[in-house]
């Protein structure tokens, strides 16, 4: 008996019909485009093209790919990073290991302190685009954690941690700017 989870079985062990490929495309296209747009801020039109290229490149690897989703997600993440390297921007991907940690207490008063000290835009400018967007949504546009989580396609709990991490990063950037000014 083969008791491996369905996702881990080779999807394309040998010959398959075109319907299988159509299903792969339909079931995963939205996910790949969303990853490129949401996590890496790739413009939608380019994200569609990137996702399409990922599918096409998958065809020559299909026989050796054991976990389709793992492969496709790895491919779109790498493709998005490469896209930005070619377009001259560095994207820092979210790191949930750090996000899962308790937010630094030094960040607690950041919202009161920051506007008094620097232009918020200057800090946000120096942050990875997605992080800046999350802070804007939360503190400038007034969205709730739940609303931002829904919009970003993650859980509220995760978004809460993420906001903490974004604030911490903003504080670090701010401290760095202040240190440079003091020199």
């Amino acid at each position, binding site marked *: 008996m083969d008791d491996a989870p369905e996702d881990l079985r080779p999807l394309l062990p040998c010959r398959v019909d075109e319907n299988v490929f159509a299903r792969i495309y339909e079931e995963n296209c939205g996910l790949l485009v969303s990853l490129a747009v949401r996590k890496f801020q790739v413009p939608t039109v380019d994200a569609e093209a990137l996702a399409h290229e990922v599918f096409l490149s998958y065809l020559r690897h299909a026989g050796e790919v054991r976990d389709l989703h793992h492969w496709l*997600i790895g491919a779109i993440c790498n493709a998005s990073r490469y896209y930005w390297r070619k377009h001259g921007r560095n994207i820092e991907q979210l790191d949930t290991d750090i996000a899962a940690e308790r937010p630094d207490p030094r960040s607690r008063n950041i919202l009161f302190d920051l506007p008094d000290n620097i232009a918020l835009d200057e800090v946000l400018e120096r942050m990875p685009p997605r992080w800046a967007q999350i802070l804007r949504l939360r503190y400038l546009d007034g969205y709730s954690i739940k609303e931002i989580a829904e919009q970003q396609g993650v859980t509220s709990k995760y978004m809460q941690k993420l906001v903490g991490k974004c604030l911490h990063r903003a504080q670090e950037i701010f401290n760095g700017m202040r240190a440079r000014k003091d020199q």
Partner: protein
Amino acid sequence: MTHSDDVEHLAECSACRQRFAANVVPFDPAARRNREREFTSVAGKLERERDESSDVVARYLRDTPTDEWSRLAEMPDLRNNAALEQMSEEVRRRLHRNPREALAIANLSASIAESLAPSQYPSVVLAQLRGTAWKDRASTLRYLARYDEALEAAERGEEAVAPFPSLAHDRAIIRLVKAITLGQLERFEEARAIFSECRQVFREHGDTKRYVQAGMAEAGSLYEADRIDDARKLWMDLLPHATAEGDVETQARIHNNLGYCEIRRDEFGSANIHFSEAVAGFTDLGYTSEVARTERGAGLVLIARGQITSGFARLRDARRAFTVAGMTEDAGLCGLNIAAVLIERGDRTAARAIAQDVIDEFTAAGMNERAISAVIALRDAIDVDDATAETVNTVHAVVESLREIHDAAN
């Protein structure tokens, strides 16, 4: 940059995948349908070509003299993805036993891939075909020790895939060959950076086999650079992946390498455990020569570090394993290693006995007369109390050099 856990989670959880993809990104349904149609049509084309081309390459190679293989590039039924896949497989099969034939096939493959009509496949697929062909050429050139040309070929492969962000996996496969070549040119720093980068890409694509392969090479280069703790850490990290893959050979090799790391860290107990694990793995696989080599390597290193008893025991096991495997010359060389230790310890009787055993074995196997004479001279020197460990090592070097000359002549 790390591949964060939420992305890892998406790969494993269908509910989160659905939620993540749901109603966020607006798209043009007609454009998406057209793309899907292109994807399924290319998929169908590749499958049909595979169905129609089974064994086509093997047949052509069999029916054509080797020196005319380059002319096969004109054959219409070899000018497609399926045939190129088969050529890549033929290169892989011949790499070890006939690298020159492998190179001829890789050249044929590169020549076909470079001259396919742009309309035959989407540009990203064409780039993959070209990248793979150049990578195969790089591998064979590396195998033939033509390292500069190998690097050039790998770079041609990189150029082929460079315009396509989606080809990170293909790019990493090509760069892995490049890094191995750089390592052989002793450009360790450059090689290590590429190994590390490739490992990351393979991990993100769930390609455990290549992840371990890149990691093994990276850890090896760390060890060479004397970064023993880093190398050890990486090998330790790779071990569960090799275990999960059921790759017993790699597990045994990792244990062997960890054994060397532990010796360098003066952790002799742990080293012995790792060497024993390596020997057990190679024994399970029936790799008798690897068992013997592992024992000999471990024995020599342990003795060099002053762990005479355990090292001596391993050398004896190694000699026994070489004898069982019918590797008379290696068994003899191992016997000389043991004789050196015995002389060092003042046990000349045992050293003479083993020298005599080696003479008898070499004679029975009809080995090189000069090798036999060298060991006879050693035995006679022991008889007159005129042999030191250095004398034995000299004889060892003579026997080994005679083997190298013999190997080169063949």
